[in-house]
């Protein structure tokens, strides 16, 4: 019986080991996916802030150009 159990047990042990290995891999995959999503979101929010600042700057520059020019083009 011990001889019969051994290979089966070994197999089962091996299977457990494999599953743990697979589990580690899949949880790392999930962490990567989570990281990618959160990186995407934070990047988008920062880029949106940048966009707002850029738009505000553009409007201010437009105003200043209008103030400063007397009809000639700014080239």
């Amino acid at each position, binding site marked *: 019986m011990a001889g019969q159990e051994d290979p089966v047990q070994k197999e089962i042990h091996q299977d457990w080991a494999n599953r743990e290995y697979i589990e580690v891999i*899949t949880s790392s995959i999930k962490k*990567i996916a989570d990281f*990618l999503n959160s990186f995407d979101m934070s990047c988008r929010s920062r880029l949106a802030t940048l966009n707002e600042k850029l738009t505000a700057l*553009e409007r201010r520059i437009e105003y200043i150009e209008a103030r400063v020019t007397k009809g000639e083009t700014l080239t």
Partner: protein
Amino acid sequence: MPLVKRCIEPRHLCRGAVPDGVTSELECVTNSTLAAIIKQLGGLSRHAEDIFGELFNEANSFYMRMNSLQERVDLLAVKVTQLDSTVEEVSLQDINMRKAFKSSTIQDQQVVSRNSILNPVMEMYHRCDKPPPLNILSPYRDDNKDGLKFYTDPSYFFNLWREKMIQATENKRKEKRRQKAGDKEQKQVEDPSREVKKVRKARNRRQEWNMMAYDKEFRPENRLTPSPYHGMSSEGSLSPDRSGMSDELSYPASPNHPPQEGAVLGPDGKEHLTGLNQTQSLDRAYRPPAAGNAAAQARQHSLGRVQPNQGPTPTDPSLNGPRPAAAKEASGHQMPEHFIPPAPPPPPPLIPSAQTAFDSTAGPHTLAPAGLPTLAPGTMATLSRPYSPSPPPPPPASYFPSPSHPVTGGPPVAPPPPPPGGPPTFTPSPAHAMHPSGGTLPRKGKVLGIPISDARSDLLSAIRRGIQLRKVQEQREQEAKKEPVGNDVATILSRRIAVEYSESDEDSEPEENEWSD
């Protein structure tokens, strides 16, 4: 439930069936699980690349904008150092007269459209079932429509909304025109004192602007006696559109004073006020034609009012020369006003008389020759006004087709064919009446006297040209109205809002027509 943007494909790692004939099942399962993991990693890396690509594109666009901003800032820095406060002249009028600064209000349009679709969403879309290929049948259709549009049309709702908006803007415009006409009728019939103000306000934007150009301390004071003189003087000096103004002014002047008085006071009023205004040379140049115009206008109104009398006045042929010129210069929107004088003859009797005047030129034997030359030039002069190229021809056009219907049965000579629609068929009929009348007119001229025929042939040619111009302009307007808008939600909405909230001013309407595409 939110839409999943990116999906990693082998969702369940270990659920595939174990193939038969395998002894070590656990290892088999492990291996297939590891294979699925590898596929997942592949999908994950594709998604990661996509994510970073989107972020990179956005950041790149910001980089370009930032660069251009940097260049502009550099140019501005250079320019500002060159500014010299001593050299710069700033006139007080310039401060108020210059166009106010308006920042560019660019609105994002069509943000969520097929062009801006994300890649993963597009892949998901392509993975979906396609609609049935009804487009195969579209070559066999009779009405040349796209076969698939009957099944699914993405632009259906936008087209529906656009048609509704265009219809709404048209209705608003027509309502406004009807309101304006109604207001003018009411005000001119009921309230002559208020009529002066209303009529003047429609034309005097320039006066208001010039007034606003001065600061409050510097505006020329309003010490003068009430409206007609003040209006006449300042308009005479400041506005370039002289004939229109003087027509306008002598018209409000006429109900308040007898016509000759108005004509006499015109030069007097201007004389009195040249001291105040600086553009004296303009005044002097404009006064003689203005006096002529004012006199012509006053006389024309006396003609309109005493129309049944038809007393021939001796100065008629002499004024026929300047009057066609005045008629050509005057803008069309005064047409309704002149056709609705405060005196008894309301529009329909006047217009049929005009119509009879038209037809009477074709048929000389229907009218008393003595009465005709006085009546016809006056009415023809008034009629030539809407035919001269003027921005809103539809208001005068709306006056003409309706009387043409009852009147066409009446005149015995060269009756125009009963027009099914209004203006396009109406305009050929007087043209037809005109062409045979061209032959009859010289004959009539010989009958009545030589100076009269010259004046009438001038008028006749002017009227012919006016009619042709009006026809072309109507066609152009119809074409323009067929395709007035681009496929832009913003432009459609802005047009609709402009029509709804625009102050009732005739100038705004031709402006809208002009800037439509």
